[in-house]
């Protein structure tokens, strides 16, 4: 009976299921994007435990040096790098210097041990897919996988850096750099960066010679994971000193960002809930509006012996089935939204979201939507339940 009814009202069934698909897909996407992006951002540390930089916001420092999406809070003297590098608790210290870009992709000056001493995730280093690491004394560059793909750069290609973090065609430097390596995808923000020797940034024509030895920050990996040594450095730089900022632990610093924008999540969730309610309401309206034309069929079914409860259940089931069909399609909508969002997030931040990753919302959202649809179906079902048989069956003689 349900299948027949759905077929008889095919157009409204398809339209209503489509609205459920959009609402369900949006609902799932909001949840998955929220949780996945939070997990991805707080999970991304590119293999480092802390960042040392100029006095200022820890969040800005981390976003600038790890995620490459913020302005630098300022420079620090090279001596500070040497000091922290020789600290007994520090296993690896990588200097970074920013200030240039190539067609909008940041150029970061660093040391070659970034490619040899750092594991961006357990057991995985910043490997090269082609070429070799740059020579610190030459104008050479290693391009992150995403930047290489977008810029079309290959080993042997030449490029001229542009001054500043934002691309301005009027600010081109004179130096020619040669691409000597392309990195394998690391699924970290490093994929969006063009890495060149530290001195390359420091001595680029047009840069202030007075700041030639300065750095934007130092990326730090400790020898052990004990927080004791990190706390000592935290105390030394943040509490006792007032010249530098020691951003540690990185995940906690990034979490501040999500705390600050938590209201956006709540607004998005509220909108998604409202869309879901409107969509399930459309099921109610769709079935309710068709009750007039169904009255005769209902009367015939009752005359054939169908109990009221059967009719009532069929209408509720019909609402639930429409929602179920919609939620099946919602997974396609969800993947489409996630794919689009993931592309934007990757382009802007280098953080990778997985559109196919499973999430609890993929269980509770369909169940919730079907339950809500069944609830919405109670109204037309009650109308069907109360349909008088005789007067809808044949005219009274």
């Amino acid at each position: 009976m349900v299948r027949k009814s759905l077929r008889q009202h095919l157009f409204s069934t398809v339209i209503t299921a489509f609205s459920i698909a959009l609402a369900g897909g949006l609902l799932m996407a909001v949840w998955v994007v929220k949780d996945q992006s939070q997990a991805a951002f707080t999970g991304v540390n590119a293999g480092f435990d802390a960042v040392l930089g100029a006095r200022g916001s820890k969040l800005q420092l981390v976003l600038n040096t790890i995620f490459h999406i913020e302005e630098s809070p300022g420079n620090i003297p090279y001596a500070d790098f040497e000091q922290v590098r020789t600290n007994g608790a520090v296993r690896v210290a990588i200097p970074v210097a920013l200030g240039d870009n190539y067609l909008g992709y940041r150029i970061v000056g660093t040391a070659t041990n970034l490619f040899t001493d750092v594991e961006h995730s357990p057991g995985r280093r910043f490997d090269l897919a082609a070429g070799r690491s740059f020579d610190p004394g030459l104008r050479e560059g290693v391009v992150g996988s995403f930047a290489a793909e977008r810029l079309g750069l290959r080993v042997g290609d030449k490029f001229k850096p542009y001054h500043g973090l934002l691309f301005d065609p009027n600010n081109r430097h004179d130096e020619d750099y040669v691409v000597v390596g392309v990195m394998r995808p690391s699924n970290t923000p490093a994929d969006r960066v063009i890495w060149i020797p530290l001195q390359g940034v420091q001595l680029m024509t047009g840069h202030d010679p007075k700041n030639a030895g300065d750095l934007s920050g130092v990326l730090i990996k400790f020898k052990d994971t004990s927080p004791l040594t990190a706390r000592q450095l935290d105390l030394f730089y943040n509490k006792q000193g007032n010249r530098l900022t020691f951003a540690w632990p990185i995940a906690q610093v990034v979490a501040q960002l999500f705390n600050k924008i938590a209201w956006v999540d709540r607004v998005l969730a509220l909108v998604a809930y409202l869309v879901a309610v409107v969509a399930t309401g459309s099921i109610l309206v769709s079935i309710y509006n068709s009750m007039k034309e169904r009255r005769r069929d209902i009367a015939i079914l009752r005359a054939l012996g169908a109990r009221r409860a059967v009719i009532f259940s069929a209408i509720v089931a019909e609402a639930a089935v429409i929602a179920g069909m919609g939620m099946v399609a919602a997974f396609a909508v969800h993947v489409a939204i996630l794919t689009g969002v993931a592309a934007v997030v990757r382009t802007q931040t280098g953080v990778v979201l997985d559109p196919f990753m499973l999430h609890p919302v993929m269980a509770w959202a369909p169940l919730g939507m079907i339950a809500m649809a069944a609830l919405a179906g109670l109204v037309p079902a009650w109308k069907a339940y109360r349909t008088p048989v005789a007067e809808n069956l044949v005219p009274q003689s």
Partner: protein
Amino acid sequence: MALLEIRNLKKSFRAPDGSITTVVEIPAFDLEARQRVALSGASGSGKTTFLNLIAGILVPDLGSVVLDGVDLATAKEAARDRIRAVSIGYIFQTFNLLQGYTCLENVLLGMSFGPGSDRGRAEELLRRVGLGDRLRHYPRQLSTGQQQRVAVARALANRPKLVLADEPTGNLDHRAGLESLALIREACTESGAALLLVSHDREVLAQFDDRRDLLALNRAAHAQEVAS
């Protein structure tokens, strides 16, 4: 004991202006198993209301309708639904086929509320009424006479003890009407069902040995006729 025993049956309706009109008032009516009775009834004689009371679709204000030992006047709605599904086959004047269902599905759906769907029997019944090659046709794809035959097959599908036929030839031409009537009588004889048919067509009524005048049976209709 008769298959159907009706005593002091009364049914009234409230008109939109608040007045109450008695449509059916029948002191007594009996029908034995396998008996075939034709009721003559002109428009306004309360024939459809009478059949709906027997089918348990309507509940009388007074009196009893005992079918196969169960009083439909006092039985709960679920029990009346069950009796309608199992013991009664109803052939409507307008056939009342479900337009979204094929011939076969119309018959199967009727069975599903009774003893259960039996595809073989449904197909056999449709072949028996000459629609073996129309099983998957929808009602709109059939002639009026063919639709009537689907209605007959559906009414007999659950092997009912009583078949109610409300002006079964009313929408058919003369020849098709007589053919349909013969089919109903034959099918009831084969299945052992009693038949209660109402019609105002004299030629149809003439086909039955046992004919009764509803106008005479129904005091309410008689009173209205006298008043008018």
